[in-house]
């Protein structure tokens, strides 16, 4: 394990689970979806990331300190979620540590939840979702489950590292991307990405409550979104809009 990043386990971690990653990104799609999953499935914290590469920040819950990157678990499911954006310059070491830890737990698949920004999002009533995969096997699974494949383009952020590392290791990984606001919290997109997640994992959750609390979530997520915008600028997130030039 990377010595600068430690994954500290505080409870038993289920083996051969599906590991879901949800980090602050466009529309905070992954984080909003993760928060809903934790509530609906009653997931409990089983591990956390300890690293002096991260800013000196703790998250207080009920008066007690917690790491900003925590891993929750339920039956057959692990969920790694960060409550603050991961600084661009430490994304690789943090993600490498999480992925190596996942290998040690014999994780059967890694799935990242994220968003795909679209123009004039407020005018769009039916959001589309896309999937990208780490290898042919995962791509086949995504297609068989009826997911639309993102065939060309760029991906920037932690989910890009997950796909890259999984591809190198020949492990199955899928990134799910729901169309979303780039810079505003988007609970509707989070609901969409959860529907896509259910197609792959069978983890069905009722998203009605999530949609009902949409305005409250948007207000509460305001500051995390602002910090995330700053970090996305640093990591050149805008490159995802670029016209790809695939060199064959």
């Amino acid at each position: 394990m990377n010595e600068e990043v430690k994954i500290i386990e505080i409870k038993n971690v289920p083996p051969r689970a599906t590991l879901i990653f949800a980090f602050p990104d466009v529309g905070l799609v992954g984080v909003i979806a993760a928060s809903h999953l934790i509530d609906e499935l009653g997931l409990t914290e089983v591990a956390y990331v300890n690293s002096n590469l991260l800013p000196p920040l703790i998250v207080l819950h009920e008066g007690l300190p917690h790491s900003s990157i925590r891993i929750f678990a339920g039956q057959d499911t692990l969920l790694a979620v960060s409550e603050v954006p991961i600084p661009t310059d430490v994304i690789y070491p943090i993600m490498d540590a999480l992925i190596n830890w996942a290998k040690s737990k014999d994780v059967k698949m890694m799935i990242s939840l994220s968003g795909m920004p679209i123009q004039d999002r407020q005018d769009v009533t039916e959001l589309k979702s896309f999937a990208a995969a780490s290898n042919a096997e995962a791509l086949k699974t995504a297609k068989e489950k009826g997911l639309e494949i993102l065939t060309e383009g760029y991906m920037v952020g932690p989910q890009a590292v997950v796909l890259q590392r999984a591809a190198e290791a020949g492990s199955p990984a899928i990134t799910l991307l729901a169309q979303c606001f780039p810079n505003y919290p988007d609970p509707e997109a989070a609901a969409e990405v959860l529907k896509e997640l259910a197609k792959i994992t069978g983890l069905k959750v009722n998203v009605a409550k999530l949609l009902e609390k949409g305005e409250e979530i948007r207000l509460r997520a305001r500051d995390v979104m602002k910090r995330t915008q700053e970090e996305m600028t640093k990591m050149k997130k805008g490159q995802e809009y670029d016209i790809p030039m695939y060199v064959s």
Partner: protein
Amino acid sequence: MSIRKKASISDMIDEYFEDMEKWADQLRETMSERPCWDLKTCAIEPLREITVTPTEVIVTVDLPYAKEETVQVKAVDGSSLEILAEMKKKIRLTELGVTHRKGVIQRFHAWIRIPVTVNMDKMKIQHKKGILEIKLPRKR
């Protein structure tokens, strides 16, 4: 004497945005951070985004909980906008997870500087799904 290569329009636009980014970074560094809410005015600063196209400036503002009929957009001195909106209900800071301060938020308030010259008189406004969109044609 250095001779500067003639830049294309896209180079000039890129350069302009790089300068803007640097300016914003410098400004951020010199200003101490403050909360997005102000308990004296019971206001919260909304998230906003500015897009500059060759023909117009599009400003969007995220206004969850805003009462649509109370949204006000005021042009100030030809280069700034003031946005005001009342919320559907008063929200206690504790409801937003801020437990160390007591107070309520009941409106949005923002000042937005427009980075290029625009025609404020031809402003177009729409409010959809809690997102305020303001379109301002650029002056030629």
